[in-house]
């Protein structure tokens, strides 16, 4: 049965079965360009759900991997995916576009939520974000939540001009905050340590590395809003009873050994829970961030 599932998932991934999920079938969705890897990652969860939901009229749980956010948005819109797992900012963006609903928080590696920090050398004269104008900040890459979206959001919130620099050797703009993509969080802190950039946007983990390597050598300039580590989005078209049943199963997974095992295999997931501050409180800053980004994009950045 596992093989059968895999074959079907592959067929789905290739878009051959691009039809709405029929009754008795639950579809889990994900965005990634590595289909095989993602199917493999989701399979334990899918199998677990299939077993747990057998009494709820679910014959099978399928996995659909989409290469882009747009494809996922479309799939959600078309009702091809019932549940979608992703980072909070991306998930918020897609869910807003597709009318889907964030339902659960997904813990990963024991972390429920996180934020982004901007780090500067201890002796830097940068005291606030505005001091970054005319200086270079290192971002990770355009898809990174903590390494790009959240810190960029903070700068945009301050209405500071931001402009990308080709590389760290190039001179930054004098009238704007120059940023350079380091391609990796590790590179970001390396570059900061070498003085190639004036500030680094990283996550708390990156900052701890710096602290470890150079105790007292760097300080936190500012930190972003707190966002869930991962989120689970539910298609609004999905049968509410089924959705509720799925949520119940997911929430109870960490209570049983089989559930824990499936969680661990599902990309080191610790557990699922409900958003402590509620969906609205959790997501409205993220929506605001999305709005700022849209505006910045529209302004031709």
């Amino acid at each position, binding site marked *: 049965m596992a093989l059968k599932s895999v074959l079907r998932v592959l067929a789905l991934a290739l878009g051959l079965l691009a039809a709405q999920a029929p009754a008795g079938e639950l579809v889990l969705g994900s965005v990634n360009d590595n289909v095989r890897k993602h199917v493999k990652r989701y399979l334990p969860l899918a199998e677990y759900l299939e077993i747990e939901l057998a009494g709820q009229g679910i014959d099978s749980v399928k996995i659909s991997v989409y290469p882009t956010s747009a494809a996922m948005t479309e799939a959600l819109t078309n009702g091809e995916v019932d549940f979608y797992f992703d980072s909070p900012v991306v998930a918020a963006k897609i869910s807003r576009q597709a009318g889907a609903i964030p339902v659960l928080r997904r813990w990963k590696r024991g972390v429920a939520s996180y934020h982004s920090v901007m780090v500067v050398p201890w002796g830097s004269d940068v005291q606030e974000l505005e001091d970054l104008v005319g200086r270079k900040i290192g971002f990770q890459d355009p898809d990174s939540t903590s390494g790009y979206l959240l810190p960029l959001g903070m700068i945009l919130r301050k209405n500071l001009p931001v402009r990308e620099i080709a590389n760290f050797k190039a001179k930054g703009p004098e009238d704007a905050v120059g940023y350079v993509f380091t*391609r*990796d969080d*590790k*590179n970001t802190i*390396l570059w900061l*340590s070498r003085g*190639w950039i004036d500030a680094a946007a990283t996550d708390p983990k990156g900052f701890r*590395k*710096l602290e*470890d390597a150079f105790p007292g050598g760097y300080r936190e300039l500012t930190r972003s809003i707190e966002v869930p580590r991962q989120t689970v989005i539910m298609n609004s078209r999905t049968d509410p009873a089924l959705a509720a049943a799925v949520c119940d199963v997911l929430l109870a997974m960490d209570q049983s050994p089989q559930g824990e095992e499936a969680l661990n295999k599902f990309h080191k997931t610790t557990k699922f829970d409900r958003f402590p501050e509620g969906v609205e409180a959790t997501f409205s800053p993220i929506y605001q961030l999305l709005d700022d980004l849209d505006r910045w994009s529209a302004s031709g950045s």
Partner: protein
Amino acid sequence: MNRHVYKAFSDRARMATSGLGRRLSYVFGALITAIVAAVILINVQTQLQLVRERLELRVLHLLEIATEVSLPYLIEGRAAELDVIFEELRKQPDVIDIFIIDQDGIMVVESEEQGDVDFLKPANDPLANKAAETSEIQRLDLPEIRKVAKPLMIGSVNYGTLRLDFDPHEERSEIVKVWSRNALGGVLFVLVGLFTSNLVATRLVGPLNRLTRATERAANGDLDQTICVRTNDEIERLASSFNTMLVALRRSIQEIHEIAYRDKLTGVPNRTWLSLQLDQIAIEASAKKESFSVLFLDLDDFKSVNDNHGHHVGDRLLVLFAERLRRCVSEIGLAALKVGSDRNAAKYRFDGDAVVARLGGDEFTIIVPTLLCRELVEGIIEAMQSEFVLEELSLRATTSIGVANFPEHAPNSELLLKHADVAMYQAKRAGRNTFAFYDGDQHKLSIERLELAAEIRSAVEQDQFSIFLQPQFFVATGQVSGAEALVRWNHPTRGLLRPDMFLPVAAGAGLLPEIGRLVVRKTLASAFEILPRVDVPLTFAMNLSVDELADEAFVEELLWQIDGANLLPGTIEIEITENTAMTDGAAIERQLERLRQVGTRLAIDDFGVGYSNLGRLKGLAFDTLKLDRSLLQDVGEDEEAENLMATILAMAQVMKADVVAEGIETRTQLSVLEKYHCRYYQGYLGARPMPAERFATWLLANMRHHERQA
């Protein structure tokens, strides 16, 4: 394994493992082992060098690759990308860890061991520091790990240091393989070497072992061998010396044997040879169920040859006698063994033919097959007919031969020789110049006689002899005229023995003078005791033999005793037998004359049974004739006997001799004696012989009787 091959192998092994062979094997083995070890060490060193160089190349290659790939990223500060690259590099089987320390000594690509904990931390790696300082590759080779630090430079700009922890396990396994291969090869080489050394040692020691065995054989008496060694070295010279030594040894032994076993004078085997070989000959003959004879030869009267012509003539005679014996042996178709002519000691053994040997003096033996024995003996007796020509002198000699046969006459060599000797004496007794085969019965008698002679000798010493006196009477009056002393032996177990039971043996053993002395002393003692007690003259007669008369010392003692007894002349009468009287000898006559001069009467005893020469009798000037009892046996009944007695009495009258008739037992005999005027008689009619100590009493009684009658 084939048994022969196994034997050859074990022989070789034995040879190679014995003494010098073993030592040579050890030396060669040790040399080969040392050489192989040296070669292996050199080989191993070379191969290990190759392994090290190959691994060095590998390390350098890894460093090069890592440098090429990582340097651009390092320059760009792409630690994450470097992580990915280095993760791949770490997958290389011999890479334990690989990481980068930047120019500030900070870990850019952290070591796998530490994970990303070390990221951006000071590396504190002395090797890397040194590489950074020197701008040269630095190494630290440890058994389990090889650490290399390579400065990452472009031109003179240092961007950091590449640190590689290399696992030299491949080198270690290569080293193990190299050692294993070489050790295996070495073991094979050593084994082959040992086998070869064993072969070589065998080649070298083989001749020595042959020499050793030859020496052992020589020690066991095998001198008839020659060892052949062709090694063209000291061993060949040793073998040659050994052969020379064997020749010398054979010669020496030959000489020793000649001295030991060959009679120097005659050249024939001697007594030593005979005593050694006769046993062996007997054993071999027993085994073959054959018989052989031993001839015991003795030259008759050889002593007189030495006495009359000197020992050099006697020796020469012995040499000629030996030659004649050998010739006799060859004339019956046998080869006589001659010691000294044979090449080696083994030939000193009797080989089935005849052998002439000298026992010593004039005694020789011949060993001959029994079948040819009589022919040989007769041949020898015949050959002795011709004279021996010794330079100016020609001698006639005879030999007496005793023969004893094996196993008929004796079951062993010792008895055989003894019996041949006995037989030789039988031949001597048979009149010499003849031969006698061993006669067991005769020998037994001889032995008894010998035993008796020994007893007699002992009896003389223990004074077991006594004298009996038999009275002699006047025929006319019946009065006692004297007595004849007769010897008796008071034998401790057999009782009183008469003279005829021991005197012949005593005569044969030359003991008569010993007994005679006793008789003389006891007779004189009796006379000395009796005569003073009676008032009439009496004659005491004693018998003397030729042997006694011929014994100068005996006669001297007799004369001295008679003279010392101071008796009236005519009191002592010496009786000699008719045969003694007829013995032709001036010496006897002279002794008799001396006895007469001291007043001793001479009586011819047992007259009438011998071969008397009347002329000679007359010359002896005897006083009494004692008629043998055989002459008187029939007197009174036979006229002829009476006439003969009458004639003898008449003859005695002419010779002016008294006559004593012996063995008178009847009145008739006595009356005849009266009729013909025989003066004296002796016999049971008058009295039997009585112990000397009773004679005086008897005599006195007799005399009283006659006085009463008178």
